[in-house]
């Protein structure tokens, strides 16, 4: 992990004179909820310092005051549009600590909900990626098609984004009547729609030439930096928690992981799109294999107490492996909850990727890291 070097021809004579410091954010269309301090020499970025923490709300501290159930609304707030997935490891861990056993049907419904949520997240990410590339249609189409799945989730859980759907011991309420048909119809249409993105986004020569060969993260670097999710898989490492360490019923479902070798922004932006198609496949498969009836939730005692010990659970969220480390000390409240979030893990790659890039590549490289600032800040 040698320190990044400047590109040839960029040695600077008098640093104070030619370098301009730009604050990108927090009020900036290309920063999200964070600030990136970049220093540019002409058109080239020579130094970059991400400054997250604008949405740091102390979730982990607050989780120490609430019992296992009341924590649920809190812990899904970091990624409200991927709320099923961010709750997933916590719920799995809490189930292990509380010694609960989830009914079969609930497991399938959880998988469906989390895959739907993954698509919803990815579509939103794609939409913002469009804004960052100056492509307003690329914002509108995914943001619109995303609503199809949000509609499904709304039918399942009653809420558009913050579902609070997973609880220790299962899910909160059963699927509505006639859900399978509606789900199949809308997911099929959704899949058809996202395939249409190819012409305008992914095979658009301008987009390709803008993102290809920019911000290249080599395989070794990707591993060494501990990146995860699409960033990792774009660099040629085939690692998906759903495959490697299947939780719930993922080992019974039929899907592939997508890997690309090049490790540039283009690969990083294309992998989530391919993943969405796999998600559609998983949803259809799960709808088929799901037991048609049965209980979906084990009844919890009020204020359940966790067993003494600790668990570390992880799942594959829309951004990558999401771990949850819970320490319990036999009280109704967990002693410590730590979310190991993929955004925070991917953020470390940002300075590495940006230095030496052109200023025009900054938004695309930054957002191709599949970064959601609120999650990183917790």
């Amino acid at each position: 992990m040698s320190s990044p070097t400047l590109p040839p021809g960029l040695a600077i004579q008098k640093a104070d004179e030619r370098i301009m410091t730009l604050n990108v954010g927090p009020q900036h269309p290309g920063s999200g909820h964070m600030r990136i301090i970049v220093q540019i020499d002409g058109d080239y970025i020579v130094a970059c310092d991400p400054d997250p923490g604008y949405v740091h709300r102390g979730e982990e501290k607050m989780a120490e005051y609430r019992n296992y159930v009341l924590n649920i609304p809190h812990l899904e707030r970091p990624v409200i549009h991927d709320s099923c997935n961010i709750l997933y490891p916590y719920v799995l861990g809490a189930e292990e600590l509380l010694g609960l056993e989830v009914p079969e049907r609930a497991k399938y419904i959880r998988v469906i909900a989390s895959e739907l949520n993954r698509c919803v997240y990815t579509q939103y990410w794609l939409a913002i990626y469009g804004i960052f590339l100056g492509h307003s249609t690329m914002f509108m189409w995914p943001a619109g098609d995303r609503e199809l799945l949000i509609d499904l989730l709304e039918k399942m859980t009653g809420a558009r984004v913050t579902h609070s759907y997973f609880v220790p011991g299962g899910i909160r309420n059963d699927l509505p009547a006639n859900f399978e048909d509606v789900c199949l119809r809308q997911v099929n249409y959704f899949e058809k729609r996202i395939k249409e993105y190819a012409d305008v986004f992914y095979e658009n020569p301008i987009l390709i030439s803008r993102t290809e060969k920019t911000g290249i993260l080599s395989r070794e670097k990707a591993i060494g930096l501990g990146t995860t999710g699409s960033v990792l898989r774009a660099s040629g490492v085939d690692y998906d928690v759903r495959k490697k360490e299947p939780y719930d019923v993922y080992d019974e479902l039929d899907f592939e992981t997508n890997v690309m070798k090049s490790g540039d922004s283009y690969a990083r932006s294309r992998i989530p799109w391919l993943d969405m198609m796999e998600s559609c496949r998983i949803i259809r498969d799960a709808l088929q294999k799901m037991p048609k009836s049965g209980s979906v939730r084990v009844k919890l005692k009020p204020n359940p107490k966790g067993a003494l010990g600790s668990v570390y659970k992880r799942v594959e969220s829309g951004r990558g492996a999401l771990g949850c480390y819970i320490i319990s000390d036999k009280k109704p409240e967990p002693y410590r909850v730590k979310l190991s979030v993929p955004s925070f893990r991917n953020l470390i790659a940002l300075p590495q990727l940006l230095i030496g890039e052109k200023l025009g590549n900054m938004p695309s490289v930054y957002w191709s890291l599949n970064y959601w600032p609120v999650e990183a800040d917790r």
Partner: protein
Amino acid sequence: MLKDLITPQNANVFVGKLGDILEKAIDKPLGYAINWGRIWSLWPVHIETACCSVEFGAASSPRYDVERFGIIEAFGSLRQCDLVVVQGTITRKMAPRLRLVYDQMPEPKYVIAMGACAITGGLYFDSYNVLPGIDGILPVDVYVPGCPPRPETLIQGCMLLQEKIKRMKARKFV
């Protein structure tokens, strides 16, 4: 007799009266027109403060499309904007920046507090890093509750704001 009437004082009074009448006459239609323009062209500033920005984005997506109300999202610079939608939690790190953004915007400007966090702190009422609502730092015009508010609720909030602008005085003085 007529000569007595035409004095400088009387002329002054006459001109003053004329001015008053003119101002009154101009004030209302002009104010109405200006307010009408302001109603239909609310450009929100691009500041995301927390997770409510997801639903703010959804509100400008094709399904809800706030551009129907003349609200365009894609404005980069705060100098051209007139609406701050505080999209959620204001942390102690963000608060001074938010205030600065508000200060740097041109008059007239409006504030919508979106989400429980922006109104009272919401879920984070006991967090160490979150402000209990933004009333302390910005004058809020409309509160939009929810966590996050549905886009419909946000649109309803915008309509309330339009209603409010309609009833505001357009200018202090000509």
